[in-house]
């Protein structure tokens, strides 16, 4: 992407006003989205994103700059702009770059860009048609295919020069069930850090039927009575509860500034002893996986919470300076236009010892959340929310009729104490997580869990 000569010149220029650290991040990304409506290709967006982001640190102060160009002149100009923000004299001489080659733990068999549109379209179409055929009540089906080929280069004044190529593929099917006056929706969207071999992991018809089944089920569902009750949350996307209620508050971006409910709690019990939570960027082919993070630190597997005890935060280099901690390979950015910060990768609650049937049987009256939508959190107050896409009432320990329109809200530090039963069967699911460093792919996950008491919003 950039010659070593230009990278070195840019680093030296960035350091010229007294910074103690400089970093060049260059990116060349190709991203294509194919949208289908009523099983026909409706729109295709096909983008090339390329540019450079340069950062310098002086202590805990940071200057960042970016430019939508990989031209030598534009890169050097960006380095000058960044340096202009400080007024000191250089502490560094020349920068000696040593290229490092990290292994690729996410091999890609079929590079999507090398395959014609028709093959991708056929797969999504098959899923859409299966959804439509599922029931007369399915009024509309939409679907999309996404491929991302994200090439990055990271060079720092410490001499690191590293590159990575991150290929991701994802498919979505969304179904609408309608009775003429009311609509309900269902959807599914698996993805992976893989090429088109993703298609071999899922039968497209099964994806379509799953979305349709959810929409039809919800069309015939009533509303849950709002209130505080026990909730059983299913594995897979159910893990969004940990992501929102706790995960964001363990990111150094908030912790280093005092903007987290879990500041100063290392070594302390912050969750129920049944809860062990892990952030693992090294899962082969995982949607949120990587070889190196966006500062060039190798991806890691970290136990965040061990039997309820807080073991570590997720730390990037800059916030690590504030906290006196090493990077945990957690620095991520959507692209060159975003300054990186600590983020999650594949984050999940680890398997426990409770049997699924015991968890359901333990609830006299409550909610079984089979599938979740997204959510959000205010890390300062810990107030979080997320929506239940497919829910059922539990009565006398049995899963009963479906209910729609439920959302779960609460305070993160309370809720993770209330996770008092944890099943054995962990599953992960894919999402896009938005924060200050942009929208990035992350996995959430967990086994079936019980939250002994939480506020359920409904009617």
């Amino acid at each position: 992407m950039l010659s070593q000569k230009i990278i070195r010149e840019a680093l030296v220029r960035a350091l010229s006003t007294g910074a103690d650290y400089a970093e060049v991040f260059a990116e060349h990304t190709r991203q294509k989205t194919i949208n289908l409506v009523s099983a026909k290709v409706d729109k295709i967006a096909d983008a090339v994103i390329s540019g450079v982001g340069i950062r310098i640190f002086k202590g805990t102060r940071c200057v960042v700059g970016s430019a939508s160009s990989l031209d030598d002149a534009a890169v050097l100009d960006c380095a000058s702009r960044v340096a202009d923000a400080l007024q000191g004299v250089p502490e560094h001489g020349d920068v000696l770059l040593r290229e490092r080659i990290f292994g690729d733990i996410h091999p890609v068999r079929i590079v999507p860009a090398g395959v014609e549109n028709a093959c991708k379209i056929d797969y999504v179409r098959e899923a859409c048609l299966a959804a439509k055929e599922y029931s007369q009540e399915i009024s509309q089906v939409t679907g999309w295919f996404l491929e991302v080929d994200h090439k990055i280069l990271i060079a720092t004044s410490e001499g690191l020069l590293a590159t990575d190529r991150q290929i991701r593929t994802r498919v979505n099917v969304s179904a609408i069930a309608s009775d003429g006056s009311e609509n309900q929706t269902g959807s599914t969207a698996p993805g992976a850090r893989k090429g088109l071999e993703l298609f071999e992991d899922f039968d497209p018809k099964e994806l379509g039927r799953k979305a349709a089944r959810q929409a039809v089920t919800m069309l015939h569902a009533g509303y849950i009575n709002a209130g505080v009750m026990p909730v059983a949350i299913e594995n897979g996307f159910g893990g969004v509860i940990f992501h929102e209620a706790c995960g964001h508050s363990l990111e150094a971006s908030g912790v280093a500034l005092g903007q987290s409910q879990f500041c100063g709690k290392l070594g302390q019990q912050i969750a129920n002893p049944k809860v062990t939570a892990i952030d693992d960027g090294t899962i082969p082919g995982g949607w949120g996986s990587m070889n190196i993070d966006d500062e060039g630190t190798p991806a890691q597997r970290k136990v965040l919470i061990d039997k309820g005890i807080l073991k570590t935060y997720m730390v990037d280099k800059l916030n690590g300076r504030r906290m006196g901690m090493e990077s945990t390979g957690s620095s991520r950015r959507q692209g060159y236009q975003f300054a990186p910060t600590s983020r999650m990768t594949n984050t999940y609650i680890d398997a426990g010892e409770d049997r699924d049937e015991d968890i359901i049987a333990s609830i006299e009256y409550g909610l079984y959340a089979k599938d979740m939508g997204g959510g959000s959190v205010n890390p300062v107050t810990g107030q979080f929310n997320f929506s239940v896409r497919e829910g059922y009432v539990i009565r006398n320990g049995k899963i009963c009729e479906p209910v729609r329109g439920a959302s779960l809200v609460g305070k993160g530090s309370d809720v993770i104490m209330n996770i008092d039963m944890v099943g054995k069967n962990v599953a992960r699911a894919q999402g896009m997580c938005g924060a200050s460093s942009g929208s990035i792919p992350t996995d959430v996950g967990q086994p079936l869990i019980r939250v002994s008491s939480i506020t359920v919003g409904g009617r």
Partner: protein
Amino acid sequence: MTYQEFKEVVIGISAELQIADYELYYTESDSASVETFQQEIKEYSTDSSMGVCYRCIKDGKAGYASTENLTAEEAASLVARALENAKSIESEEEAFIHEKGDSYGVLPENTCKEPTGGEMKEAALVLQKEMYAADSRVADGTQSFVAYGRSTYALCNSKGLDLEDKASYTLCGGLALVHDGEEMYDGSEDKDGNLEDFDLKEIAGKAVEDAISTIGADSVPSGKYNVVFMGRAFAQLLSTYDSVFSAEAVQKGMSLLKDKEGEKIAADIVTVIDDPMHEKSLVKRTFDGEGVATYEKNVIENGVLKTLLHNLSTAAKAGVKSTGNGQKASYASTVGVGPFTFYLKPVEGTEEDILSAAGNGICIKDVSGLHAGANPVTGDFSLLAAGFRIENGKKTSPVKSITVSGNFFTMLKEIDRIGTDMKFIRSRGGKCGSPSVLVRDMNIAGQ
């Protein structure tokens, strides 16, 4: 190469390949921002970005490709990719390259002065200091920011259209954290306009007051309550549901407003306006994503759905004219449909009058989780909310950890009062605005 050079190369390649109908959409922006932490500048950022999208029509279908890499080699690839993509399109929707002949509005003279980096840092530090000075409970984690942005939007096409809009703005705001010894609370306030016009002490005071007003917030028993949505909260809802007014969503079976034009869909007092050149908008637009002239329109007038929003394709299908709402979320996006500055027209009464009309109930100042908890296809929403109790017509103690739920389409019909205290939030197309709104008997979940 520069955009002008790149454009000439693309035009040359299009001619060679005998592509008769095409368009180039270009955006360019420069921005700078400062953020503080404690009494120091934490981060200073300068960004310069641009990108170009090529759209061509092949056998009646539109193909898109975009790039940020302006080289001759990339120009050839851009056209080839767009052509290839056009061949894959199966939708029967007709695509158009817009002809000349519209009468375009004129942007008001831009009065936003570009602040220097030094001025921005100074203002951010003063604002930060004022927040700490406003109350002894203000804690570290409190942050101020100042940002400046300048953008250009340009569209040219094979029919001879050549348009450009420019915008620039300064933003300034604070996130205040207060610690009462046990818990942390946050509040915020921001302003846009000219840096020299900002009253930093006032912004600081409002951010801190916003945080302090939530101290001791608790939940309420679940039940039905009269709800006053403050302007900001109702604007958040309106902005989330703006897609239901898109003719594209209607034609594709994703909005319940199918066949509702000319019908009553809301209470008599409800008028909703889309105004691309609204004075509050930071990015006023004279043309949309297809080069069609924009204009102000009532989408709902006295409760009646007057028009859906259209781009050229949806208008052709419906047999009407485009409303100039062909929207591109970014230069690289395909053309969809969406509003610019979309707002609920003020009716009567101050915030106090609306609270007084509610009698007893809940006043909601903020809703969260809109991307998941509010579904435009069904209209259903169930959202985390924060605000205050209303007792005897007055705001009293703070409330948190509650959800408010309902259905957008039902709620439009049940709006009881609309005030005049307009509040605007930034949205995809510009801004979204609303005064305080009273809806009776809404479902609140709490304890």
